[in-house]
């Protein structure tokens, strides 16, 4: 070191005075000390304990520490605080407050300057006796509050002010804020209480989130299962589809609809020639036809469309499997060639509100072209009818060029009109454009009307098509 620099350093040390000792006088609860040259914190242990420049002190929950300096300055730390001794010399005591709340009592009347440094300001004791409270929060933001006497506060930009008793000021990276009146103990308590309650209110919102998530999953699952749909009129329609097993050789596929005006349903109830397996997947797969004869043959069926006051019932019996591509009727052939087995029924009847309107019969039919229209007998029971069945004319049309709508009109000679309308629906309600006709990606709605009554059924699947057994 050059002699001139060494001289000035020695002079500076002389002015500052020799190193002095601070004393940890009280330590209640968890109080730890770290020496200036140490990495680890240690229990404060027995008090009084001497502390040197650079030594750090930290307190745990509800703990308390009191450090006394030469010249009478005292630093008291509350729980969860951290500070270190920056300088302790004859002419100067400086403390570095890093986190938490400390209370400093000191005097500037002697020859010794007393100050506390925080990340965003330096606080210096002024006057005969000064008591101040200093809180350092996250990010280095500090609050200085003078309880007694006066203190000078200087921020990192060099701006400064003098705080008198009963005043407080906050500092942050932007510097000093305007000083305000320090809160009274009642105000301080109320402020702490408000902060605590706001925090609790926030926890309540978090707690609510778990229940909301569970409710959201419920709603999502119902939507994914197609149980809450919108019909052609844009109104809510609830849908449930399920299988009932009334007997070992029977199954019923049911589609229930629920609207504000009540329930309606579609059901296909089939009786087979043998007991059905527990797993119905292969049975359902072959119901609409297969390339080879299936193991189970539907012998009887009843398809019902009904609401509270109207029903359309179709019944068939005498079912047997026929290779429709191998029979003599080219009109019932299934495209693609090869064998195409379908179940053909020898007897069929259509009933409106329990009254037979049309039907046919045959014996071991190979094609429905060979069936004979019923006239004076019920085709299913064979019972004689009171009067001959009316003559029917059936027409299928697509009445609206713009929408996916198909209408089948059955006009009976007794004046009865049966309208069967199929609608393909827009997602979210309404009838889809014509191009969507028959699209598997659309929900279908059936509307059966007769005698001023309409049965509306939204089909979540192609249940009607999969179980259609007759032309």
């Amino acid at each position: 070191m050059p002699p001139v620099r060494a001289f000035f350093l020695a002079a500076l040390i002389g002015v500052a005075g020799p190193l002095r000792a601070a004393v940890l006088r009280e330590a209640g609860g968890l109080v730890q000390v770290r020496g200036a040259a140490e990495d680890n914190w240690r229990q404060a242990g027995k008090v009084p304990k001497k502390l040197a420049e650079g030594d750090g002190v930290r307190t745990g929950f509800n703990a308390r520490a009191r450090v006394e300096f030469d010249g009478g300055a005292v630093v008291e730390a509350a729980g969860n605080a951290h500070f270190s001794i920056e300088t302790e010399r004859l002419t100067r005591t400086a403390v570095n407050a890093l986190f938490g709340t400390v209370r400093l009592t000191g005097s500037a009347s002697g020859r010794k300057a007393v100050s506390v440094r925080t990340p965003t300001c330096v606080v210096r004791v002024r006057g005969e006796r000064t008591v101040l409270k200093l809180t350092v929060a996250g990010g280095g933001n500090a609050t200085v509050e003078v309880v007694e006497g006066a203190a000078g506060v200087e921020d990192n930009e060099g701006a400064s002010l003098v705080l008198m008793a009963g005043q407080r000021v906050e500092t942050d990276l932007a510097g000093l804020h305007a000083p305000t009146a320090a809160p009274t103990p009642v105000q301080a308590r109320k402020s702490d209480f408000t902060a605590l309650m706001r925090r609790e209110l926030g926890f309540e919102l978090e707690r609510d989130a778990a229940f909301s998530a569970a409710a959201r999953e419920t709603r999502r699952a119902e939507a994914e299962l197609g149980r809450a749909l919108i019909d052609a009129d844009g109104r809510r329609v609830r849908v449930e589809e399920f299988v009932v097993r009334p007997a070992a050789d029977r199954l019923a596929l049911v589609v229930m609809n629920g609207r504000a005006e009540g329930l309606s349903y579609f059901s296909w109830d089939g009786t087979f020639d043998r007991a059905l397996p527990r797993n119905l997947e292969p049975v359902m797969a072959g119901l609409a036809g297969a390339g080879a004869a299936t193991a189970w043959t539907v012998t009887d069926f009843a398809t019902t469309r009904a609401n509270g006051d109207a029903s359309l019932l179709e019944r068939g019996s005498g079912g047997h499997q026929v290779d429709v591509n191998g029979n003599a009727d080219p009109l019932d052939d299934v495209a693609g060639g090869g064998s195409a087995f379908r179940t053909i029924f020898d007897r069929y009847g259509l009933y409106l509100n329990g009254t037979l309107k049309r039907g046919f019969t045959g014996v071991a039919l190979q094609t429905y072209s060979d069936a004979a229209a019923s006239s004076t007998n019920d085709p299913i029971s064979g019972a004689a009818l009171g009067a001959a069945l009316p003559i029917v004319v059936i027409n299928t049309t697509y009445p609206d060029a713009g929408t996916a709508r198909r209408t089948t009109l059955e006009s009976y000679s007794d004046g009865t009109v049966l309208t069967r309308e199929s609608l393909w629906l827009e997602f979210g309600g309404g009838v889809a454009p014509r191009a969507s006709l028959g699209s598997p990606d659309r929900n279908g709605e059936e509307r059966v009307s007769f005698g001023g009554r309409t049965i509306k059924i939204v089909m979540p699947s192609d249940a009607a098509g999969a179980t259609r057994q007759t032309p």
Partner: protein
Amino acid sequence: MRSLIAVVLSLAAASAGAIEWTPIGGLSALGGVHFFRGDRGSLSGNADAVFSPAIRLDERWSLLPAARSTYEGTRRVSDVLGAATPLSARMAHKASFKAVWADPASRWRLKPVLSYKYSFLKETRDEDWGKGLFDERLWTVGGEAEFLTREPHSLRVSLDWFDASYPNYTSLESQAALQFAGRPIARELVGDRVLDREGMRAGLAFDLPAGERVRLDAALSTVWSRYGRQKVVNEAGQFEETGREDFLTAFTAAARMPHEWNADLRALGSLTLGAGVLASNQNGYDASRGKFMSRFYDYRELSLTPAVRLLVGAPREPVSLDLALGWRRRAYAGRPSQDASGSYSGAPLTTIEWSFAGTLTYPIVKRFSLVFTLERVSASSNQRFERYYRYAYEATSALAGFRWDW
């Protein structure tokens, strides 16, 4: 008798004098619009109001009665969007009562709580308030124990009993069993209020500092639900005696780190990892195909959300800009995906969601801010069958309004 009344009145007056209360509340109102698959919804708005007269009984005991009402006319992207209902308006009213025991000399805080919430949902034009299919009533009773590790950090453990009911939801099948008696159109053991459930919620949450600048927080929550009226479906498509039970578990862990460029520009970055598991004993049954799907509702979900909050201006009342990017993947182990016609493939159904959210908060006066929010989500899936629910979509919500806290 008169003297007794006088004593009671004087005691009440004395205790009332010791009690302090402070009002806490907030109000936000935002108007906006929601777009789904390019279709613009009508202009509507959202509002959220909360009020609590917090009461300090003494050094240790406080009461926090609270009331909260929300209205959501503009759908948010976190909603169940795939249902794509033509209308969506939601309203919820909640009342809760919480007691807080916080002895200054103890690290523990104990908080019993009771709450009741009524949620209303309108999804179609013919649904009126109070008649919504998914209207929900929720009762909860429980409590939380908080252990202060190093203030303000803590560890919280909570447990709640709950009862959720859907007053307008009764299974059609159970109604049919009564209305169409004699016909085989309802299964044995069918239940009526099949969505009603009760159960327990358990939660564990903590936050702690990690190093000088990073803060970690994590939360684990599980909801056990027992559906008393909903029976488990078997492989024959019929009901078992066993009732449905679900466990919905969610875990999030986040690391947050502040950064300061200068006094007027700061940022808080965060990275949140989330995981969710739904485990249910309920199966699925596709009746038209006779297809049984074991543990139909089970799923596993992973999510990752990097986010940043930029703070510009004076630290006490800065302009803040929140930006978040989200990725979420959900896989249903027991639910095979389907092609457009509904035929099942072997691959489990998965969904992937990318989201973006930006919120600008501009303080006008103390506690009063203008708020602008933009949210966007893009969802995709290997599920091609979208007859009931949209799995692939893009949706955007834009909202503007104000927030007032006091």
